[in-house]
């Protein structure tokens, strides 16, 4: 984190119950940060701390140079979308969205006009007068989104803003959100479980696990060089950590026994090795030929996956393989059966740990 | 502002604080007073004597205080609230009140001590209770164990009217006010506990003149007649 003057520079330390969050978040002006992490990692807690809703045990929040660490919530120039929406049930959708502008001193008519415009933008102009309870889950979340955008925040905090949206609405709200975020010169932090959201919307990704930052970088980097099992699964890669010696990497296998993976480019020391599931070929019999990585593994589970089939395998090296339904039929093996898996060394990527 | 019978605005308002038991008699006298004193309106504050004493001692803007009990009048006198000496203008004596059909067949004080009769007495802290104590002592040790020591004579009377008790010791004025629902039985020992009603003009009276005239009216023959109709015995 050098050079770029950060719009948001924060170290968040929050303690609650047995859980402790200690994470540093930095977002440049106009940048969108995606916060990824497994359930219970502390993503919502981090957003709450940024909003001034969770007390910080330590740390500091700087936004556009101003210290917000102890600023009360209502004085922070933020907009927030909550994981469970929290729409005011006694107000119509329109008045929910107009609430923020009203608080900022807009006239009733002005606030409503802005609210109407934002509802239009999220495709809910027809539901302006509906009460939140009369909205479907997806509609409610779009109103929440509009409500947060209505205050023209300098820091936008979004807790899974697209989770309740159907595929189509999601794509369209996502691209509208992206356009809005592109115009936006403040900082935005968006929590999402969908790697696609992160890839499309975010300029940078910060991954939190158990309250601590485990990885941070541009989405493509993170996708290509996952550093934890969680990230690897998220971006759909098989990931291993081991000791490299040239093009041979010694990794710790699933059973604890060491296993070896051949890689294309030589590397040294502590490294990660990753390869995509579709790079794995499966055979009934031990294959001959070029692939230097061949393991005999047991099928642990089979899932349909789009127009592919994902086969989970266990053994010296645990991995997932994506094959076609036709391929699976040809293989003629089911759960619990032993098969051979091969991966070409050129399909693997090796990078320092 | 107050409007008198003739439709002209009253120039003066006389404020009389009086024990609630005087309500009917004083309202009647008030009409006469207003007739005789054009330009003066009489306003009453009826409440329990002790409430009134407390109000006066806290600076209530009253001209006259008529109490049902010398002891409560003394509270005001001790606080220096009375102009001159209080004067007794009426007396009240106890009677035995029984429901109209007198279910327990009460004829005199002695019947109240008998087993089986449910009796209400006033608590000794209130005037009618103190009087009851006196008559029991005078009757030579008739000891009545009541079901309840009422703190308000009207509460005792109401229980008689509803037949919840067979008898109660209350004032004659109360029996008369209650009409047909209640029968009053006089008894000789009542003479030993006559209750005096004192009246006084107050020291901080805003209208001392009319106040004195009011006291005069109450103590006059005219006043005595009205009070007598209500069951009081009078000094006039």
């Amino acid at each position: 984190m050098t050079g770029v003057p950060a719009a948001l520079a924060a170290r968040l330390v929050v303690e609650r119950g047995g859980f402790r969050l200690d994470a540093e978040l930095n977002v440049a002006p106009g940048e969108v940060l995606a916060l990824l992490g497994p359930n219970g990692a502390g993503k919502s807690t981090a957003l709450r701390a940024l909003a001034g809703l969770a007390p910080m045990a330590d740390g500091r929040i700087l936004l556009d140079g101003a210290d917000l660490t102890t600023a009360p919530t209502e004085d922070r120039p933020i907009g927030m979308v909550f994981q469970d929406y929290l729409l005011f049930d006694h107000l119509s959708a329109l008045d929910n969205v107009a609430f923020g502008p009203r608080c900022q001193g807009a006239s009733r008519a002005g606030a409503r006009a802005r609210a109407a415009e934002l509802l239009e933008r999220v495709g809910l102009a027809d539901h302006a007068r509906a009460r939140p309870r009369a909205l479907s889950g997806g509609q409610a979340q779009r109103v929440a989104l509009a409500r947060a955008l209505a205050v023209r925040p300098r820091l936008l905090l979004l807790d899974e803003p697209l989770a309740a949206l159907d595929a189509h609405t999601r794509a369209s709200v996502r691209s509208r959100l992206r356009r809005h975020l592109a115009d936006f010169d403040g900082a935005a932090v968006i929590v999402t479980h969908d790697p696609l959201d992160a890839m499309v919307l975010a300029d940078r990704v910060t991954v939190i696990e158990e309250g601590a930052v485990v990885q941070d970088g541009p989405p493509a980097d993170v996708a290509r060089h996952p550093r934890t099992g969680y990230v690897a699964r998220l971006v759909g890669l098989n990931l291993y950590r081991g000791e490299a010696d040239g093009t041979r990497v010694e990794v710790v296998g699933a059973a604890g026994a060491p296993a070896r993976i051949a890689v294309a480019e030589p590397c040294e020391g502590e490294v990660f090795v990753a390869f995509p599931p579709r790079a794995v070929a499966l055979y009934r019999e031990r294959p001959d030929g070029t692939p230097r990585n061949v393991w005999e593994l047991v099928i642990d589970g089979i899932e349909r996956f789009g127009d592919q089939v994902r086969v989970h395998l266990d053994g010296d090296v645990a991995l997932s393989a994506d094959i076609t339904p036709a391929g699976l039929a040809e293989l003629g093996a089911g759960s619990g059966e032993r098969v051979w898996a091969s991966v070409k060394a050129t399909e693997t990527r090796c990078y320092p740990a | 502002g107050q409007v008198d019978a003739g439709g002209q605005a009253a120039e003066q308002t006389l404020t009389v604080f009086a024990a609630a038991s005087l309500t009917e008699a004083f309202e009647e006298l008030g009409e006469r007073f207003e007739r005789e004193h054009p330009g003066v309106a009489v306003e009453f504050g009826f409440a329990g004597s002790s409430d009134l004493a407390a109000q006066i001692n806290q600076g209530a803007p009253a001209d006259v205080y008529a109490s049902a009990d010398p002891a409560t009048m003394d509270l005001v006198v001790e606080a220096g609230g009375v102009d001159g000496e209080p004067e007794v203008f009426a007396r009240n004596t106890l009677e035995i009140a029984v429901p109209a059909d007198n279910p327990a067949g009460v004829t005199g004080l002695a019947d109240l001590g008998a087993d089986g009769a449910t009796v209400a007495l006033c608590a000794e802290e209130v005037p009618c209770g103190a009087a009851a104590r006196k008559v029991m002592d005078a009757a030579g040790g008739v000891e009545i164990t009541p079901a309840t020591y009422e703190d308000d004579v009207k509460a005792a009377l109401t229980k008689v009217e509803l037949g919840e008790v067979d008898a109660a010791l209350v004032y004659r004025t109360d029996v008369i006010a209650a009409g047909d629902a209640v029968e009053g039985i006089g008894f000789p020992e009542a003479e030993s506990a006559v209750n005096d009603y004192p009246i006084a003009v107050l020291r901080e009276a805003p209208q001392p003149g009319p106040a004195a005239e009011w006291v005069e009216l109450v103590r006059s023959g005219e006043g005595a007649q009205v009070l007598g109709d209500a069951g009081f015995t009078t000094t006039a």
Partner: protein
Amino acid sequence: MTPRAPAGRRRGPRVASGRFPWLLVLPALIGFAFLVLPFLGLLIRAPWPTLGTRLLMPEVRDALGLSLVTATIATGIALVLGVPLAWLLARTDFPGRRIVRALVTVPLVIPPVVGGVALLLVFGRNGVIGQYVHAWTGYSLPFTSAAVVVAQVFVAMPFLVISVEGAVRGADRRYEEAAATLGATRSTIFRRVTLPMAAPGVLAGAVLCWSRALGEFGATIMFAGNFPGRTQTMPLAVYLAMQQSPEAAIVLSLVLLFVSLAILVGLRDRWAGVA
């Protein structure tokens, strides 16, 4: 009185009502019967023929009017002062909050007549505060219509405060957090979020306060006196009628009751939450 599914504006009605909830309905019916049976007793005993003439008496009309006006003003004042107090108790934490909350119940526990004495001690012409007011302005509060309102506020406001506090405490705080992120100050949050969410509780508190003010007797007669047309409210008129006969008192009480029932029945289920 078979409970049916409500036509609730909020959620759709239930499709069917299920097993009959005797465990709830039975005690509810007993409770209701207990509260209204005495009322029926009064109705039976009331001297109906005299009711009409009573109603026409100007003193009764004056007393009724005074009662309704003062109780309504008292409720208004109690709302303005009491609702913020309820908020303070429910939503902030200051040293001694529990003691403050308990102190709010003082006027409930104190016998009203003593409450009236206490008011005199403070606001009377010789009172702790009243003496200065009287010395400087010549104004004296007791024995005026304003004193009636003050006595009613004193006696009835605690009901409002305590029940609104309960309602505010029960409201989901996360909505207040959401409002704060939208830039709402605590006052705005309270006015535009907390209060509408707690509306049923506030309405309940206002009904309690109004009814209690309407029925207030002891503090009023002590602090405001018993002057027809000025401070004689219906309960005071009832007290004087009681000097004559319980029947007269019953008739006046019923007059007060019917008027208050008519007003309460006329009230909507909820005032907020409807566009």
